[in-house]
């Protein structure tokens, strides 16, 4: 699974996710990736989020909107909210990772055991990491 979140100069947020699913899935299986609120979510003034991992657990957790809801109704930071959501997925028995970006440009990239990830800001220098 791959994904991206961005904040543009107008202050608009966006999120995108794309996947081939999981190896040897049944052909008719749907994951969390195309489900808004689960694998993908964006709301101006709040957060943009994309997830990767055990899709069924992201669906059960309504993961992307769960992050937004914690920030919206609980006043949490993007870091605390995304960390809490991933922890709740792990508590259910799932694993994976998330990228989440708030409207001030703060972001979080929590993951269970490694995630291919990167970010680029105003200086135009790409930053990447795996573990």
């Amino acid at each position: 699974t791959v994904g991206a979140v961005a904040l543009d100069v107008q202050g608009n947020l966006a999120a995108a996710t794309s996947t081939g699913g999981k190896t040897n899935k049944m052909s008719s299986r749907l994951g969390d990736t195309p489900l808004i609120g689960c694998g993908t979510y964006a709301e101006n003034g709040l957060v943009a989020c994309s997830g990767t991992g055990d899709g069924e657990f992201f669906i059960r957790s309504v993961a992307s909107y769960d992050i937004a809801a914690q920030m919206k109704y609980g006043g949490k930071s993007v870091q605390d909210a995304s960390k809490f959501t991933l922890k709740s997925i792990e508590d259910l028995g799932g694993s994976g990772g998330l990228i989440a970006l708030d409207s001030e440009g703060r972001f979080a990239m929590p993951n269970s055991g490694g995630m291919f990830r990167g970010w680029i800001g105003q200086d135009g220098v790409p930053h990447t990491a795996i573990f």
Partner: protein
Amino acid sequence: MAKPILVIHGGAGIIPRESLTPEMRQKFLEGLENALKAGWNKLGTGCSATDSVAAAVACMEDSPLFNAGCGSVFTRAGSIRMEASIMDGATRQFGAATQLKSTKNPIQLAQLILEKQPNTHGFLCGEEAEEFGALHNLPQEPQEYFKTERRWKQHLEGLELDKRPQVSEDFSVVGPKG
């Protein structure tokens, strides 16, 4: 004016640290860098966040390294089925598509849906979704385009594990998790 920023991921928890060779690691890092540059080419020149995330994701779909587009994992039946979605935070409209087998860049189909019919047919499935994309000139590819040797090997290994009764339902032991 906000300070633009782009954040990406290319999958999580799929390759143990010890089995990732330096060469593979370098390839993955280059793949991520390419995606960041593709997205930044949009974002850094004043384009929308929506265009930027679509460009970054499309770049990873074009790379055989990542589990999306070319390089997607196989189904049990040995075919490819892809899905994608995109959401615009400004309008909270979205586009999504699933059960895709020939759309070269599923994220571009999701973006097309977002732009053309977000309030009436935001989430499309299967052949009709791909016909919609083809109607708007989105590139289509045969299944062979999406298949890679590395994913085929994972597929075969998964089928072997599936034959073992003690792990027959444990798909977590095999490859990418989506």
